[in-house]
């Protein structure tokens, strides 16, 4: 009877395609919005994630997320280095100077000042040039998207000059740094250079980056640093999550995306459910005839669930395919780079779609199960 169920489903081509389109649309919207949402939140920790050399970030005790820094004292670096289990600790500066091109185009940028001696935290994925050239005078490495923002429609080229707070900066490398939360250029330079770009204050140190000694538990070392210095110490992963949580709590992003996702889910449930329900109701007479002929309720339930799963699987596949295509197209766009279809979201949406079609089929099944087969004699 599975054959009969599938032919009943595909026989009404318009409704069949309508059902698949509805579920595909719902899938696309849900996967697209949840992936963009997750991608944008992930961006809040991009600069933390890009520092692969250190595992622990030490900061002011009240710091909640990456952008929010209060300068530490230079002596804090020494105190952190003195904690048992620390293999090494280096300083990191974060500022937001304005970078200007010679023709006057400018943009506020993230400027990360790396430890002069070790260049810990330098971008490892370089598109052009080399991060080792950061040791040269006035050298900066800028990310590709930032370069495109400052030099639109121009090919990537090294040794171009920027003016940063009345200081000359020479581009010695172009990196593929992860996209930050806001579309600012990301510049890496030496610590001593960065503080000049921004202007000296009494204290400059934004973060201390720490590598634990081999065999030392990272979380335990964080606890030790906090206890001994009174500063806040977080593992890279913890600090990234801190940023995510901060943006979730203090911005309208989750509400806006949440509304879109909820609407997509409601529209998907209502439209797909209603269309499938109507499809089954229109076949009620046929199901009644099958019941009279001797097809059991279980078999009919199986037929309807099979129909629902079929449109669910096809609709989900088409929607996921379209969503993957969307992200493939937008992957290299500077504004949307790094936003991808996240497989966990895809799985979650798959489960949601499965629930939607099962719910819709159960609502339809109810009508068929209570149908008296004698109804078929009533014309």
């Amino acid at each position, binding site marked *: 009877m599975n054959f009969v169920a599938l032919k009943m489903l595909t026989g009404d081509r318009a409704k069949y395609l309508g059902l698949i389109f509805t579920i595909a649309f719902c899938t696309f919207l849900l996967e697209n919005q949840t992936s963009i949402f997750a991608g944008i939140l992930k961006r809040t920790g991009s600069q933390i994630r890009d520092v692969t050399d250190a595992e622990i970030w030490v900061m002011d005790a009240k710091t909640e997320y990456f952008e929010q820094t209060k300068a530490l004292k230079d002596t804090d670096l020494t105190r952190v280095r003195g904690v048992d289990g620390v293999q090494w600790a280096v300083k990191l500066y974060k500022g937001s100077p304005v970078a200007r091109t010679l023709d006057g185009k400018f943009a506020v940028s993230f400027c990360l000042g790396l430890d002069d001696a070790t260049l810990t935290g330098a971008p490892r994925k370089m598109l052009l040039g080399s991060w080792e050239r950061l040791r040269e005078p006035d050298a900066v490495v800028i990310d590709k998207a930032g370069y495109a923002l400052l030099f639109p429609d121009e090919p990537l080229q090294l040794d171009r000059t920027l003016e940063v707070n009345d200081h000359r900066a020479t581009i010695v490398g172009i990196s593929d740094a992860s996209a930050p939360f806001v579309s600012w250029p990301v510049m890496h330079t030496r610590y001593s250079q960065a503080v000049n770009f921004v202007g000296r204050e009494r204290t400059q140190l934004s973060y201390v980056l720490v590598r634990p000694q081999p065999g030392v538990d990272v979380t335990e070392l964080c606890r030790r640093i906090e206890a001994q210095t009174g500063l806040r110490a977080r593992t890279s992963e913890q600090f990234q999550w801190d940023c995510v949580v901060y943006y979730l709590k203090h911005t309208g992003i989750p509400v806006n995306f949440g509304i879109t996702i909820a609407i997509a889910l409601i529209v998907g449930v209502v439209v797909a459910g209603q269309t499938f329900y109507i499809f089954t109701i229109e076949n009620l007479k*046929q199901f*009644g005839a099958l019941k009279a002929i*001797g097809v059991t309720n279980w078999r009919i339930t199986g037929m309807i669930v099979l129909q629902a799963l079929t449109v669910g699987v096809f609709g989900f596949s088409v929607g996921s395919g379209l969503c993957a295509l969307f992200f493939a197209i937008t992957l290299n766009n500077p504004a949307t780079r790094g936003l991808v279809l996240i497989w966990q979201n895809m799985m979650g949406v798959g489960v949601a779609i499965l629930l939607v079609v099962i719910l819709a089929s159960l609502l339809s099944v109810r009508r068929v199960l209570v149908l008296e087969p004698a109804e*078929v*004699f009533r014309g």
Partner: protein
Amino acid sequence: MISEIAVQCRGVQKEFGNGAGKVLALRGVDLDVHYGAMTLLVGPSGCGKTTLLSVIAGLLNTTAGEVKVLGEQIERLPGRQQILFRRKNLGFVFQQYNLLPALTAAENGAVPLLAAGVPRREAVKEAERLLTTLGMGNRLNALPKKLSGGEQQRVALTRALIHKPRLLVCDEPTAALDADTGHAVMELLAAEAVRPERAVIVVTHDSRIFSFADSIARMDDGRILSVAPEPLAQGNHDFVPHERVREEVFA
């Protein structure tokens, strides 16, 4: 050994609704339907023909009385067994054919075998053979919407007969057909469906097909008014009293 009486109704009553809206559709029906004969249930609209047919087919339960179908008190069977009994022993022909619009003629005809778990290829092949017997050999792959009313009813007849049921119930099989087509369908029904091991019950108010009956039960107001002629003599399945029926009914 096949019993002479295929269906036996004794004092069958059927009520619908309750309280002030209660309707007594059957008011103590006594009826015997014999193997090897086509029995017509006739009477005006609303007299209870279809309700009686539904009760006999096990689609409705009685309020009182007893119905024996092929020797079984069908409504005493547990739910699933009742359905399986119906699937195995009963064939249905509906007024509006009730074919599945997405299935071809042959596939529609094969549905009872598919429901019984027969492999698709085998079931469809059997349906094609039977449809060819019924003169539909050139329309095997046509969808119902491409078939005329008479052709659709022949497909419905195939579906009703393919699993060799012992009782065939037909609800107004000619009501949606013109006179000639209706006559042709009844000729097929009489020729292909009536068998010594099978009983056929046809509900109709189409007097043009009375001549095909071996026995006619007239109903009114939920009761059997008369059965013409008298039930067949035991074991005499070759007895086809068309002329006697016509004389008695039209008298």
